[in-house]
């Protein structure tokens, strides 16, 4: 689930007929000043980072003139918001407001339907409104086939306590937002705050769009907007993570591969599949081990992919051993895993005879897999060794060094 930065999302809004404030991105304080001068009035300066609740961490600032805009831009550019360094700010006209509203469409995974969420109490986090003023929120599921027509949207807004000449505009805007949600295969689309102006207009104060990575193939129009790696929301992708992603994308349709770099640790973790890797990581911790990363590889990957992931896992400084383990496989060929691991260890410049490596690989072609591991001097464990026992043996191998 990758995010689209606010100024790009707003471009998409504008094309869909959703009103937005006038605004332009700036990469320096001088540029911010020039933009503010052109606005001829108070402005808002916002850090363009893929982080939520920016208002609460000082990433949204207000200025009365171009000097103030320059100061705000100078303050924000180069600063970290969460783990993201700000390199661009959005300088926008400040809108006169009568009230602030809230509108979003999300996928409700429990109801297994899209859900539209509306609130007359916008500008603050919706989680807070849900706690402090739950009656202000109106929400309902939407059928993919029937959609969200304007009349339904008007009904919801009136339920939220809104009335008067703004109702038709809200109905229209909500329907347009629904169409964007469907057209771009979005997981989340949110406007908070949604400004209600004194002259009875509706303007999107913010724009959050999260795209569905698995629908990327049919949305080339979004590719240049998507910030990669923002499915991992607390920090940008590390070099090793980007390296692992490149390894995977060489042959994206053969097997799964993901790598998450973690702080500290000395055991390189290369396990699978999706469920067993979670269990194996738990077991490694319980046994007193210190994994340096989480990596999952499965779904019958190619030898090249296994080798690449092995190299990445072993490349992290401080990694002294390697834990390779899977559940008994359905279709993943353990001999291919074995060849990939041995090649990857070589590419990382390590000697499997002196590096502690434990492999628990049972299932398809495991006799051949065992032969390859053992010829390379790697400790092989088969189906008779349980996953938790394999984890204990890995931790024991670390303390005894590579010797056996």
């Amino acid at each position, binding site marked *: 689930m990758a995010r689209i930065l606010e100024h790009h999302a707003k471009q998409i809004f504008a094309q869909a007929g959703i009103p937005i404030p006038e605004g332009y991105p700036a990469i320096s304080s001088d540029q911010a000043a020039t933009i503010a001068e052109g606005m001829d009035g108070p402005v808002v300066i916002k850090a363009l980072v893929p982080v939520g609740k920016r208002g609460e961490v000082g990433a949204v600032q207000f200025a009365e003139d171009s000097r103030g805009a320059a100061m705000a831009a100078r303050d924000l550019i180069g600063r970290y918001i969460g783990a993201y360094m700000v390199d661009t700010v959005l300088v926008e006209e400040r809108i006169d407001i009568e009230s602030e509203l809230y509108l979003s469409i999300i996928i409700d995974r429990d109801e297994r339907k899209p859900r539209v969420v509306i609130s007359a109490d916008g500008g603050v986090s919706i989680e807070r409104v849900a706690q402090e003023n739950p009656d202000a929120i109106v929400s309902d599921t939407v059928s993919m086939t029937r959609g969200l027509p304007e009349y339904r949207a008007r009904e919801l807004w009136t339920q939220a306590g809104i009335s008067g000449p703004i109702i038709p505009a809200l109905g229209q805007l909500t329907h347009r937002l629904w169409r964007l949600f469907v057209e771009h295969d979005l997981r989340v689309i949110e406007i908070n705050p949604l400004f209600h102006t004194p002259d009875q207009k509706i303007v999107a104060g913010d724009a959050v769009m999260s795209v569905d990575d698995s629908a990327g193939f049919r949305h080339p129009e979004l590719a240049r907007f998507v910030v990669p790696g923002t499915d991992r929301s607390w920090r940008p992708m590390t070099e090793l993570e980007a390296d692992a992603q490149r390894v995977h994308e060489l042959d994206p349709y053969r097997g799964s591969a993901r790598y998450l770099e973690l702080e500290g640790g000395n055991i390189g973790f290369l396990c699978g599949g999706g469920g067993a890797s979670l*269990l194996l990581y738990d077991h490694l911790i319980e046994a007193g081990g210190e994994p340096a990363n989480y990596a999952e590889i499965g779904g019958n990957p190619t030898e090249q992919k296994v080798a690449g992931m092995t190299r990445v896992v072993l490349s992290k400084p401080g990694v002294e051993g390697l834990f390779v383990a899977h559940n*008994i*496989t359905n*279709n993943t060929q353990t001999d291919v895993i074995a060849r990939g691991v041995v090649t990857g260890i070589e590419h990382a410049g390590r000697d499997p005879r002196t590096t502690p490596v434990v492999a628990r690989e049972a*299932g398809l072609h495991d006799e051949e897999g065992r032969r390859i591991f053992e010829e390379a001097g790697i400790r092989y464990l088969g189906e008779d060794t349980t996953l*938790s026992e394999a984890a204990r043996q890995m931790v024991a191998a670390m303390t005894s060094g590579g010797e056996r």
Partner: protein
Amino acid sequence: MTRLIDDSLRLLVQGITGREARMVTSHMIEYGTSVVSGVTPGKGGEDVDGVPVFDTVKQAIVETAPSASLISVPPAATLDAVGEAISSGIRLIVIATEGIPQHDVLRMLELSDESGTVIIGPNSVGVIRPGDSVKIGAIGGEHPARAFVPGRIGVISRSGGMTAEVGLTLRLAGLGVSTAISVGGDALIGSTPATLLAEFQEDPETDAVVLFGEPGTRFEEDVANHIAESKFTKPLVALIAGGFTEHLPEGTAFGHAAAIIEGDSGRPSNKRKVLETAGARVARTLDDVAGLLKNAG
């Protein structure tokens, strides 16, 4: 719900001419599954391992009367394949495809709800019933008996691989499997673990169920509710993986798309707690599962 699969199964494979589907088809036939037909638009008239291939599901139904479909087509084509199967009257569908756009899955689930179709998956490795020697999907691979031997334990797993590992654990402990179901690793799936409990509640050949759970979703919480409300009364042993993810920043997916903790929901510690409170036995490792099952019996 009647039994999900047994030896009366007549299987259609949509996307049968694909590389993966060909291999899976030959393994299914070898195991004993009656694969009656395949569909790949444009390849009607061909055959795969002796199984006739048709251009449309309608033709396959007229000629071969399948009772269920395994869908193994690319992500972009899955919604269309599901729509074709449902509109042709197929009421049990296993979707192997991974990485389907979420909006397409929402549409499929609307179609299945309206028609009363049971969907297993997406991203399911399949369903196996060792006592009848039938399976749908890659589950168990080429040699299912290595992991799945006939027995009286039902298995429901959010992980395809762990479905097999649980089967192996049971076999090594001298137990066996009645039916094992890989529900799929996504958050949006046709049949959740809780809805599948009915299958095992009614199956006289199932004495107890093993559930393999993961972080994210409310699937395990729903199972706990089913037990608490006495909708499921047989012993249930749960193993919930991924406790470590609670100590990492939230919002990251591990392993499966659905294994993601957001806010307070989806925490393995909470899943274990509510399951235990409801009366399920919670295993700390796979090694404990057989012991907990035997104590239960």
